[in-house]
């Protein structure tokens, strides 16, 4: 099987400096924030690739680069061997754009409150001048709502139902890939189960590929085939699901696993991890994790660890073996 999405050396730097005048007056240097740094991975067709990491680790930024909402500073994203950022053939760009859709985190902000559900769902097709008769009604039933909902407005729906509407909109252009940015983290557990099940069903029915972004390890474990763990914009570990969960090799992955609250951890006394994620504008030298790493050695603060293969996983840690 070939890779549907190929991400190579992806880097995104944001200019977060103050306005020019303030900078001159206060004699501040330009502030550059590296949100994503040298990230490479491949997503197989009809699989689920998950990106996990804490807030600010660059998950959403990668997702937005992949769908083309944010241009990369360096590196490339190939979808079906087309690079949206450099491709000049308009027809190809159009085709790839239709092939890739996105579902956002906040079901309350991702639907235009002034539009009827029918218009919202049909927009991807209407924008291309396609035929939308009955489209919204059919998609609504496919995502478990009723056709009668097409004439309602978003505020008449609960969070879970809104996320279903978002999924229906994403399906309208018959895409191959859906980037899901924390699709269930605003939902309650019982509703989350419904949405995750729906996503699994749709994936099977339509042969979809998901790039699944989440910070919830249990959700990732349930959904993903392959997982990349991000820390401060870099991939620190990447492995098939079972290998990652049975044998996490990067100290950060292990820390994440330990810190996650467990439903069977009655009265568990965790030794909480040290420190917090450092400022992304001035990340630590060497391995970005070294100030919090329980096993760091002197070399870690000097030299950045490269990704290497360790027992079925790719790990960026000097000490992993």
């Amino acid at each position, binding site marked *: 099987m070939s890779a549907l999405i190929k991400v190579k050396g992806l880097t995104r730097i944001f200019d977060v400096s103050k306005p020019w005048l303030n900078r001159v007056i206060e004699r501040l240097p330009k502030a550059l924030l590296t949100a994503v740094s040298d990230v490479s991975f491949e997503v197989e067709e009809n699989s689920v690739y998950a990106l996990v990491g804490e807030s600010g680790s660059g998950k959403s930024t990668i997702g*937005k680069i992949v*769908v*083309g*909402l944010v241009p990369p500073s360096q590196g490339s994203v190939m979808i079906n061997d087309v690079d949206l950022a450099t491709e000049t053939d308009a027809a190809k760009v*159009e085709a790839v*754009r239709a092939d890739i*859709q*996105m579902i*956002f*985190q*906040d079901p309350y*902000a*991702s*639907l*235009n*409150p*002034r539009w*009827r559900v*029918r218009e919202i769902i049909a*927009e*991807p097709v209407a*924008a*291309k001048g396609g035929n939308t*008769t*009955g489209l919204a*009604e*059919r998609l609504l*039933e496919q995502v478990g709502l009723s*056709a*009668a909902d*097409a*004439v309602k407005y978003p505020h008449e729906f609960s969070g879970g139902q809104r996320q279903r509407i*978002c999924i229906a*909109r994403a*399906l309208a*252009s*018959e*895409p*191959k890939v859906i980037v899901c940015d924390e699709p269930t983290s605003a939902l309650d557990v019982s509703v989350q189960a419904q949405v995750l099940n729906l996503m699994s069903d749709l994936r099977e029915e*339509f*042969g*979809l590929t998901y790039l699944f972004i989440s910070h919830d390890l249990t959700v990732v474990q349930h959904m993903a085939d392959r997982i990349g763990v991000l820390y401060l914009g870099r991939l620190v570990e990447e492995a098939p699901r079972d290998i990652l969960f049975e044998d996490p090799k990067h100290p950060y992955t292990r820390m994440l696993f330990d810190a996650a609250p467990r439903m069977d951890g009655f009265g568990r006394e965790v030794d909480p991890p040290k420190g917090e994620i450092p400022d992304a504008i001035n990340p630590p030298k060497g391995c970005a994790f070294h100030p919090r790493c329980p096993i760091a050695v002197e070399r870690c603060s000097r030299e950045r660890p490269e990704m290497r293969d360790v027992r079925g996983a790719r790990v960026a840690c000097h000490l992993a073996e």
Partner: protein
Amino acid sequence: MTQTETPPTPAPVKAPSRLSRAWHSDLAWSFRRAPVAMISAFVVIVLVLSAVLAPLIAPHDPFNPATLNLMNGFTPPGEANAFTGDFFFLGTDDQGRDVFSTILYGMRISLFVGFAAVMLAMVLGVILGLLAGYLGGWTETIIMRVADVQLTFPAILVAMLIFGIAKGITPPEYRDQMAIWVLILAIGLSDWVQFARVVRGATLVEKSREYVQAAKLIGRSPLSIMLRHILPNVLNPVLVIATISLALAIIAEATLSFLGVGAPPTKPSLGTLIRIGQEFMFSGEWWILFFPAVTLLALALSINLLGDWLRDALNPKLR
């Protein structure tokens, strides 16, 4: 994705009518529970209607010299004229024009200038605000700096300046004809800033929301996103400002006319009437000033109160 074996397409469903939605909306509900808003709305509707229907209602045509009788000058309200025996409900002015009729016709001009000026300011402000908020960068810097500079002058000064320039470049023979349009231009241009500021702020908020990202992803053009997605969502505050601006524009027009740089005496607005009236205030003919002034006050106040109510009613936090 294969959708060949899709289930039969369900029949499209009818949406509830606009009227029924409007009647059951929160806004209508809050209106029915706000006596101040209801009274204000009533006053505004009565005044606007009587202005619009002035040719039908007004007992005299104050601008038709043929119907005027100088003997009727200075008739007090509620009394018959000592010479002619004609009766005038609100009295007459120095030229024997019926005050009631001049008010109706004057209000027409005031309201027309107000509405048109606010429209101009609104269209201009909304467009510039949307562009500044959505495009950012240099577009935003230029638009907002111009706005800042304009804000440092009182609006009435700006309006007088624009009025002066516009008047200067119109040929004298057209001046009276053009005066109304120049007024509209002057007041409208002096008032776009607050629309632009509010729309820019709201656009910045909406722009970052995910439905806009979704529209970008779908491949909508910036213009289409601004008009179809963002604009409907920033209209609430615009509506509130427009209402309050209407009151301000009517007052601004009255001020300019009062200062003699507005509507000409041949086509008097409420402001012109007040200017004419104050000449006679101390000689005992108080009604010539009083009734136009009260009308202006009632009009501006009730529009303002409506605007206040609208602001509260549209603010979800206060509901």
